[in-house]
């Protein structure tokens, strides 16, 4: 399912956060949004998810106007992995993942739902954790469980807001590999905010750099991740080399400018 953003503006408390963003994500694409804190990448993600209302501009999901869809219709089209999930006492993995069926079945249907749930647990590799209490899991396990929830939601689009934040490097890779695998298995369109440029280059087909509320660069990782971008967008002097094994760009950061 495609995502189209046209001339999107958004202000918060009189301060412009997004100042005319255009972006088209084709069905099945894997797009990474990068930029410094406050560049508007999380805001853009929340606008696409319909959690914020734009000041002006349009957002289309699979060609349909987002503003014309109900909350539940949106939830059947896109799943969101927010930066964090507040703790819920005694909530088990199975109980959380079952909630993915809510947009399809409604509050009454959820009482007995287990249909595509087992499959979601399997796909995310957390079937063995199904009866564990969520708060007792490690950060990496929690992210995998939350991805199982997104799978159970059975949407065409997956939005992720820094899915690797606060994780060990091994779990960072594990989570991104899982996202890549889920995208292949389900034909998902993936739009993710990523802090780590090397991760964006490794896992995304397309990198969109936001700067001061606008799209500063948009293209393949090799096109976007350049020493100029590091300097102008991130304020860092650095070199970009090519990773011999993967053929993707890698940043060597030298100094803050």
């Amino acid at each position, binding site marked *: 399912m495609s995502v189209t953003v046209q001339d999107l503006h958004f202000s918060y408390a009189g301060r412009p956060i997004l100042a005319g963003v255009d972006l088209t994500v084709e069905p099945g694409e894997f797009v990474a949004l990068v930029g410094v804190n406050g560049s508007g990448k999380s805001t853009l993600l929340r606008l696409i998810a319909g959690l914020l209302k734009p000041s002006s501009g349009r957002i289309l999901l699979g060609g349909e106007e987002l503003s014309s869809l109900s*909350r539940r219709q949106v*939830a059947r089209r896109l*799943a969101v992995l927010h930066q964090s999930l507040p703790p819920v006492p005694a909530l088990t993995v199975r109980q959380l993942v079952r*909630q993915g069926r809510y947009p399809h079945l409604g*509050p009454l249907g959820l*009482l007995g739902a287990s249909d595509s749930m087992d499959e979601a647990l399997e796909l995310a590799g957390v079937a063995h954790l199904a009866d564990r209490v969520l708060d007792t899991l490690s950060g990496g396990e929690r992210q995998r469980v939350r991805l199982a929830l997104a799978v159970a939601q059975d949407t065409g689009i997956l939005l992720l807001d820094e899915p690797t934040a606060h994780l060990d490097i091994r779990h960072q890779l594990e989570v991104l590999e899982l996202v890549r695998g889920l995208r292949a298995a389900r034909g998902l369109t993936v739009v993710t905010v990523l802090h780590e440029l090397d991760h964006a280059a490794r896992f995304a087909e397309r990198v969109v750099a936001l700067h001061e509320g606008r799209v500063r660069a948009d293209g393949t990782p090799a096109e976007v991740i350049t020493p100029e971008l590091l300097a102008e967008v991130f304020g860092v002097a650095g070199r970009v080399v090519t990773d011999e094994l993967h053929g993707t760009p890698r940043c060597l950061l030298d100094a803050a400018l």
Partner: protein
Amino acid sequence: MAGLFAVLAAAHLLASGRPVGAITGLLDGVVDGQAEKIVWELGVPRLLTALLTGAALGVAGFVLQATLRNPLAAPEFSGVNPGAVLGILGGLALGLFPADSAAGALLAALAGGALGGGITWLFSAGRDPAGLVVHGLLGSALLAGLTTMLLAYQPSRFGNALRWLIGSVEGRVWEHLAFASWWIAGGIAVAWACSGLLAVLAPGDDHAASLGLRPALGRAVALTVAIALTAGAASLAGAIAFVGLVAPHVARRLGGGVPAAAVTGAVALAGADTLAQLAGHLLNGTHRLGVPAGVVTALAGAAVLIRLGRSQ
């Protein structure tokens, strides 16, 4: 489960100190002797009142804790229960309904509960729902203060005000239950039907919205159910404390949702009233001045809460 209830029911009826024969006689469907009549007219309604009130409070607390995302949310701390008590006593003071009117008490409790919930809502408007509990405490204190003012102003009119203030299931008869039982059963059924909504709401507004539930709408539905259940409980037994706070914790530990909260609350209050009846015998030797169940729930609830808090 059925066995647990049977044992509890037997203990509760026996704790009244009435003859065993009269209680077992009821099982054969005999209600002709004087003793059987007393058990049937007083003992059984008292037991059912305790079970229903406990279930209502357990579910109301469960709904509030899930909706407000605070483990300390409870009917007595959200302004709802104190409001319901104020509604009942205010209604009585104004002579809006006779002291033995079940429907009158329920309506007054509903109005008061909605007022209490509304005050909490106004205090906390536009703030994080998790902080609602602090404002709920403020609202509760305000309402309890108003109730005290009412009592101080016209003490003679409230001969049995203590039963509402402390909470007691004593003296409830079939007429009281006739109306409230349907109300509470209906409220629990609605809460159970809303299980999915509560589950989706518990991990936060972003989470709920991303799964297709408008958080404000979900919260409004859930709080309405909680107020209705709390008012039903208050109209039967007044301000029973701690059941609505502790029962949901125990229910969650048991891995259950609304049904578990109902069962835990029912068992907790029937058990507390069993102890209250026993304590009544010890303290007086007669049944004339009973110990209110609310005293037992307050003491036992505090102990259980400390234990839960330490083990978490």
